[in-house]
């Protein structure tokens, strides 16, 4: 890899020549800025919104907040849509969000047997398996077998409550905070809350990587 010295003074830190695609993108962005058609910060905002603000990260942030703030947790369980809006996220008025609380002895999971109702605004687009015939038919009749296929085995002392969503309500599971996550920041906590945890086919895991962050 050659480093020619056309780069401007970086005190010994020489930039690498960009690849062709990188150069094309740089060219487009810089030209469009010069023409006054957009600002760099506009692009930053969009990237940030789509990378972080859509999809299950919204649900994960809601869960993390509920874990650290008991008063927020109460509001979330009372009115899911309002509590989501409280954190600054958009929850449309057309459906209501109901949050289901996992507790010791109670594990919740969601399904829509009649179609594929899903809490899009907090979890993003539903996965193919959620919309599939096997999940929709078996989750109400043999949830423990389905959960085992996802790698989740629950002891007999834990009751499984499956919620069949079929109206203008959408459900989301509030998983239990796992052991080993004491003293974590909300960001660290949100990072271990996956989409599958909020559907109810998985539980948040404290891994070495997550703990090290």
């Amino acid at each position: 890899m050659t480093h020619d010295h056309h780069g401007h003074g970086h005190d010994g830190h020489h930039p690498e020549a960009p690849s062709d695609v990188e150069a094309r993108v740089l060219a487009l962005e810089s030209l469009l800025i010069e023409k006054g058609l957009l600002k760099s910060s506009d692009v930053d905002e969009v990237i940030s919104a789509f990378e972080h603000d859509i999809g299950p990260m919204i649900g994960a942030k809601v869960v993390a907040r509920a874990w650290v703030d008991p008063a927020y947790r109460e509001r979330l369980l009372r009115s899911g849509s309002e509590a989501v809006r409280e954190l600054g996220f958009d929850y449309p008025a057309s459906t209501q969000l109901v949050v289901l609380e996992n507790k010791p002895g109670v594990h919740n999971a969601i399904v829509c047997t009649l179609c594929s109702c899903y809490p899009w605004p907090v979890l993003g687009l539903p996965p193919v398996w959620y919309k599939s015939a096997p999940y929709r038919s078996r989750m109400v009749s043999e949830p423990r077998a389905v959960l085992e296929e996802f790698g989740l085995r629950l002891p007999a002392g834990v009751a499984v409550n499956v919620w069949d969503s079929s109206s203008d309500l959408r459900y989301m599971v509030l998983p239990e905070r796992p052991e080993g996550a004491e003293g974590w920041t909300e960001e660290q906590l949100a990072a271990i809350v996956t989409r599958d945890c909020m559907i109810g086919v998985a539980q948040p895991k404290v891994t070495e990587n997550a703990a090290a962050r």
Partner: protein
Amino acid sequence: MGGMQGFGSVRPETDEPVFHARWEGKVRAMAQRSFGRYFHLDEFRHAIERIPADEYLRASYYEKWLIATQTLLLEKGVITEAELAAGHALHLAPNPAVARPAPPPLHARFKSGDRVVTKVIHPKGHTRLPRYVRGRHGVVRTVNGPFLLPDANAHGKPPDWQACYAVEFGARDLWGPDAQAGDRVCVDLWESYLDPEEER
């Protein structure tokens, strides 16, 4: 679909793409643009239910959307058979005239803790009382709504706003002794699907 037999394992794909093929995205876009303009979500669901059984089982998720969208747009006169055959528009589509009224105040017959029995109905039209909970005893967990009753809404009848309840059923009551004691299934049910327990 709840409780139907003969389906295999659930098989999640890791990091699956949102659409598996280009046409799926187009179908979704077409359907979404039609909701609220040419037909309601409930009419759409009913159109999917009307797909003949063997076609329904064979069709993929987005194939069902395509069939439903096409069926409804034909029935509403937005497109014609001739245009489908020709592959392009032959005349202008009619003006959409679909508006949802605001919900009235909630008047709920049941409250949390009430014991109820679901009706035994096998309507020809669209209904959202799943087969596996017809004629079953349950307990009201929560009261929600009012929401538009989809059966009426699906056939262009006047709007019927009703309370909607999350009703809890014991898994063993639904599925027999093989189910785990203490497990439950909670189903969202409209008021007209329910009777108080003492009446039956």
